[in-house]
């Protein structure tokens, strides 16, 4: 198998100008993985600055309602309000090791942009964040947060003006500033070695969850559920469970339904294609043009998905399901009311699937839902959708 492959997926489909930077990144990553100094610094930042480990919260009310034992892995309690900081701290430290003087990033829901801005501020690296113009409007609060944190937000007006175009713009910037800039990619997508780096930095979620559930329940869960856009929080929680007898379910953005054509479910409804540097599943037409996508959750509004998920789908190790905007919004309200926890709309997709899956679980079965982020950023948006009434 060629390096950087997950089965047939992955690879490095990028302009030649980027190859030197990808080679440098891979070499740096191999070096820092073995470097105790790097691990020590990263552990310090994760523990003392970001607030790890995050709790694994038993949800008594929801468990009673659903008839199984429901736990939430609380990445919403990580500094910044989402799992994204695990990866941005790791990559920002790597950028320092490589002597890069500037970070660029792309963001959909804004959480990755905020997390990059936080990491940049903490480590003293200037940050510029590309964001689709549509998303800057849906996520105005996060735009303000990024600016408050000292980052410059650059609205992208090309294409569909969402995450995919923000990624394109960030790649162009990187091509032009390859020597002094690190592109801090926010999900387990893109060319090798990004999918692996992001997965490794996010695996802390699954390692903790696995240890915590064993401590609490003395056994592994029956099912672990996570939402999948690019798929970084999902691969982060799945990876340490891959060799266990645990059902893993990734939940994609079903939007207005898979038949409507307005969704972001690349694994459920896409086909194999090359997109933004990797071979994976892609929502595309007969000529290979990426299709427009839709999700109520900006972070899931993307036509492709990380290559490792593509392999896990083909092998059947992980099941991928889609839930609609309406189901996600219902779950958003239900978790808020039953447990006093407002999930990010992205995470609400995982909660929605948990509500559906509970029918097949027994009273003693354990269900772990990765709550990848908190919903504060989405509150205004949801209020608008419902005319101000939750």
């Amino acid at each position, binding site marked *: 198998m060629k390096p950087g492959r997950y089965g047939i997926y992955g690879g490095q489909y990028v302009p030649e100008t980027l190859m*030197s930077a990808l080679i440098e990144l891979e070499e740096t990553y191999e070096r820092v993985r073995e470097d105790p100094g790097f691990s020590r610094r990263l552990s310090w930042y994760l523990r003392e600055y970001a607030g790890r480990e995050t709790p694994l919260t038993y949800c008594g009310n929801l468990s009673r309602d659903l008839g199984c034992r429901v736990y939430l892995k609380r990445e919403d309690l990580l500094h910044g309000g989402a799992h994204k900081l695990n990866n941005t701290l790791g990559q920002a430290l790597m950028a320092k090791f490589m002597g890069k003087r500037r970070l660029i990033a792309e963001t959909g829901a804004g959480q990755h942009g905020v997390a990059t801005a936080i990491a940049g501020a903490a480590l003293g690296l200037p940050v510029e964040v590309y964001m689709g113009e549509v998303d800057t409007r849906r996520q105005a609060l996060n735009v303000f947060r990024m600016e408050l944190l000292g980052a410059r937000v650059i609205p992208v007006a*090309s*294409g569909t003006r969402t995450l995919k175009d923000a990624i394109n713009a960030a790649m162009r910037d990187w091509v032009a500033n390859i*020597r002094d800039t690190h592109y801090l990619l926010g999900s387990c997508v893109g060319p090798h070695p990004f999918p692996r780096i992001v997965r490794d930095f996010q695996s802390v979620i699954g390692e903790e969850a696995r240890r915590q559930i064993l401590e609490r329940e003395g056994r592994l869960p029956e099912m672990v559920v996570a939402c999948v856009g690019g798929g970084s929080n999902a691969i982060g929680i799945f990876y340490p469970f891959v060799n266990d007898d645990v059902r893993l379910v990734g939940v994609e953005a079903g939007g207005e339904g898979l038949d409507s054509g307005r969704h972001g479910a690349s694994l459920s409804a896409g086909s194999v294609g090359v997109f*933004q540097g990797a071979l994976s599943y892609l929502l595309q037409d*007969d*000529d290979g043009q990426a299709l427009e996508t839709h999700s109520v959750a900006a972070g899931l509004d993307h036509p492709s998905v990380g290559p490792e998920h593509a392999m896990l789908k083909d092998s059947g190790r992980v099941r991928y399901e889609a839930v609609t905007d309406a189901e996600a919004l219902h779950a958003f309200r239900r978790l808020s009311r039953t447990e006093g926890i407002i999930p990010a709309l992205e995470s609400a997709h995982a909660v929605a699937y948990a509500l559906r899956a509970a029918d097949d679980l027994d009273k003693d079965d354990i269900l772990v839902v990765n709550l990848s982020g908190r919903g504060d950023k989405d509150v205004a948006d949801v209020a608008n959708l419902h005319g101000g009434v939750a």
Partner: protein
Amino acid sequence: MSRIEALFARKNPVFIGFTVAGDPGIEASFGVAKTMIDAGADLLEIAAPYSDPVADGPVIERAHVRALRAGTTTGDVFALVRRVREHAPATPLVLFTYHNIIHRRGADRFFAEAAASGADGVLIVDLPAEESDEVAPYAARHGVDRIALIAPTTSPERQRTILKDASGFVYLISLEGVTGERDRLPPGLAGLVGAVREKTDLPLAVGFGVSRPEHVRTVVAAGANGVIVGSALVRLIEEHAGDEAAMHAGLRTAIAALRGGFALDPEPDMLRRERVEG
């Protein structure tokens, strides 16, 4: 001898024009190609429009968008190549594409259709040497040259790897960045041309940023065998949208002016400066 070989054997330097198939419309695109060849493009690069052209700057990206909005399909791209081939039997034609267009169609079918339509070469802007085994056997089977790309950031070892199975000509990317017009070309250009020249007998053509007669002069003085102009021509199409006569006149004038760079002072200011600055 292939059309590409014959061209470079006959002419030095050569002027390479770039256009996106289907820009500004499917039918109008044939007129654009025809005018470019008649005005002095020795070789034409015809791009297959793509939804996410990450190697291209804003001017060419907008051309991809215009072409896709006009409904251009991969089939239309081959049909355009076929018509241009009939119009200009001796002019080499190179398809410029992003890899997913090929992947989606299947590499065997894509290269078969490319050959049948009269394309001489295919340039895949996001398929580095590491991944090129996906297309190499099919390009060879159908007798289509695979145009290799070398960037200023490409290490000498990678240059050797890339050149090992390149054919037709070598596309040297002049600068670190996406396509688009620039005020001046980077000072390291002559060094790049010289370094690659040592490693291959293939003709070298320089693109990205070349948009003025003095740039053409610089490229030729650096020792390249050809220049590739894209954004400066694509911008004329955009500016004259809705007035085809003005568009064609603009293309003719621009190509004549750019070709004028071939005849000018062979020692341009930039090289002279470079030598002085060491």
